[in-house]
């Protein structure tokens, strides 16, 4: 029983990363109709940002958790203005291709500077040790990651439902033409929303640094799983993306725990099998609506 709870907790923590990335992807998609392939690269840059700040400047984890998302968010806004903006009127496939090209560039830049081997990052002060939950103990840092992700998701939900910006974003997501017809300047919010999504990916990267190996390729393998996650949840639905993120995290942890001995291939491919089932049963995703053509 305690083993099961342990795996469940691990799954939720793994799912927290999927959820943070899927959330950013969904917000960006809603506003810009862009599927950002470079999202994984920004996650990687977040982890490297934390690493570089610590080893070369001496800024600790807490500083990095503030600085890195802000810097990456601004960088993302600059990219949106410089490149992505030029293509948003065209088929979304062009921006998918563009951000794919950016991924190759960002990845190779980091690779040429830091090599492909993984760099260690110490667990931040104040989050070492573990928490005793009675039935099982859990590393404090992972509890923090889970709490952070849940707070971030709730925060975004509050922003979307209780603020004017949130209302504009939701309206623009669902009925872009009608929102414009009401005289709301949708374009004004496009760049900040993009930057915000990137900042979330950057924050996820910083959070990943003490837990996972920091290397230039850490983002892209992850982003492909996140693509499967948003297909399962329905990319148009922000709630669906987050829920699918946590769900897939759980499923992978259970698969890893109970199937990796008997059926290693099945354990590795669970997420894709779920995606196949969802495509058969509800092609628009579990929480997605029939999409308007885009």
């Amino acid at each position, binding site marked *: 029983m305690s083993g099961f709870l342990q795996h469940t907790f691990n799954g939720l923590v793994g799912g927290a990363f999927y959820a943070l990335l899927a959330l950013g992807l969904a917000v960006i998609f809603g506003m810009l109709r862009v*599927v950002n392939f470079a999202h994984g690269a920004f996650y990687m840059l977040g982890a490297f940002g934390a690493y570089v700040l610590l080893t070369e400047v001496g800024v600790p984890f807490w500083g990095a958790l503030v600085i890195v998302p802000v810097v990456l968010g601004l960088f993302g806004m600059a990219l949106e203005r410089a*490149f992505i903006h*030029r*293509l948003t*009127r*065209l*088929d*979304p*496939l*062009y921006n*998918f*291709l*563009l951000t*794919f*090209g*950016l*991924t*190759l*560039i960002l*990845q*190779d*830049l980091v*690779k*040429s500077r830091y090599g492909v081997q993984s760099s260690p990052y110490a667990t931040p002060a104040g989050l070492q040790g573990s928490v005793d939950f009675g039935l099982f103990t859990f590393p404090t840092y992972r509890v923090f990651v889970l709490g952070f992700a849940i707070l971030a998701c709730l925060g975004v939900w509050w922003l979307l439902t209780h603020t004017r910006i949130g209302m504009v974003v939701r309206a623009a997501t669902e009925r872009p033409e009608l929102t414009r017809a009401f005289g709301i300047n949708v374009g004004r919010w496009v760049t900040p929303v993009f930057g915000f999504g990137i900042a979330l990916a950057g924050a996820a990267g910083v959070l990943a640094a003490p837990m996972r190996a920091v290397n230039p390729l850490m983002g*892209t*393998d992850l982003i*492909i*799983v996140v*693509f*499967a996650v*948003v*297909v399962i949840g329905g*990319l148009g639905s922000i709630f669906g993306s987050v829920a699918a993120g946590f769900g897939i995290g759980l499923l992978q942890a259970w698969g890893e725990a109970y199937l990796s001995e008997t059926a*290693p*291939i099945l354990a*590795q*491919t669970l997420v*894709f099998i779920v*995606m*196949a089932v969802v*495509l*058969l049963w509800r*092609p*628009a995703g579990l929480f997605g609506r*029939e*999409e*308007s*053509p*885009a």
Partner: protein
Amino acid sequence: MSETSTVQPAESPAAAVPRSALGAVGAAPGWVRYALLLVGLAVALWLPNGLYPAIAVDILCWALFAVAIDLLLGFTGLMSFGHAAFWGTSAYATGLVAIHAGVPFPVAVLAGALVAAVLAVPIGYLAVKRTGIYFAMVTLAFAQMIYYIANKWGSVTGGENGLQSVPRELFGLDLSDEYYFYYAALPIVILGLAAAWRIVHSPFGRVLVGIRDNPARARALGYPVHRYKLTAFVLSAFLAGLGGGLFVMGHRFVSLDALHWTTSGKAVIVVVLGGIGTLWGGVLGAAILVRLEDWLSYSGFETIGLVTGGIFVLVVLLFRRGIWGSVAALAQRWRVRRR
């Protein structure tokens, strides 16, 4: 039906192609077309004399791969970002058949391509339920699944090591020299390219273009859209498989690289660079990218992704018609002005 398309996107990749849907060369006078065909054949026959023969073989394989992707992207309006699944699966299947059965290499390549086509049936069946950007994501995800399976299934695929020293047999002929292998592989590639041309210019191909331009209308006319898309997907996977199988025969080993997402992405780059929806543009794009990568790695340049990624960004931003598309558009404008 999951998607009912009523509004056309502002500019779809396929719409970047000049108005005459089947490539502007189709609108060119007959003698121009025959002249281009002859020049193409002459270049193909001369190629291993002007280039390092191994590179020439790579260009052939990538040309087939690119044309396979363009069949989907340019003529059906579906962007597969997971075609490495078919290229790589055929590569492994071809290698295994050659190692264990010792058949002539064209037979092994054909067997590999058939395996890829069979794999494309379930993947395509699921993927065509979505369109546009979702199609790209779904195919990418399934390709990653195949990659994981190949990685874990070490007893068959050799895992990280891949398959080594694949034999290259053809009725006892000595093909160990890449120069001669090029000429042995060329007929297969020409047959593959001719098949792609035939598909595009058949009534079936016309329906595909109709589906690309207006799926709702095609459905209203009674065409089973999903089935047409699936057929195109399987045919495309078969052609990509031919390319992947020959690639193995050229290199005499298979590694997991053949299934990696970067391979899928590179293939799409090649098509965009050459010109989406031009069919032969992919051949040009393949020649340029393979040659460029070889030159970069030869001159000790290590960050190849920087260059290919940069080319990709520039082409998508500034040069969406690609090389063939741009030349065709210029030629067309010139003809119109002279009239």
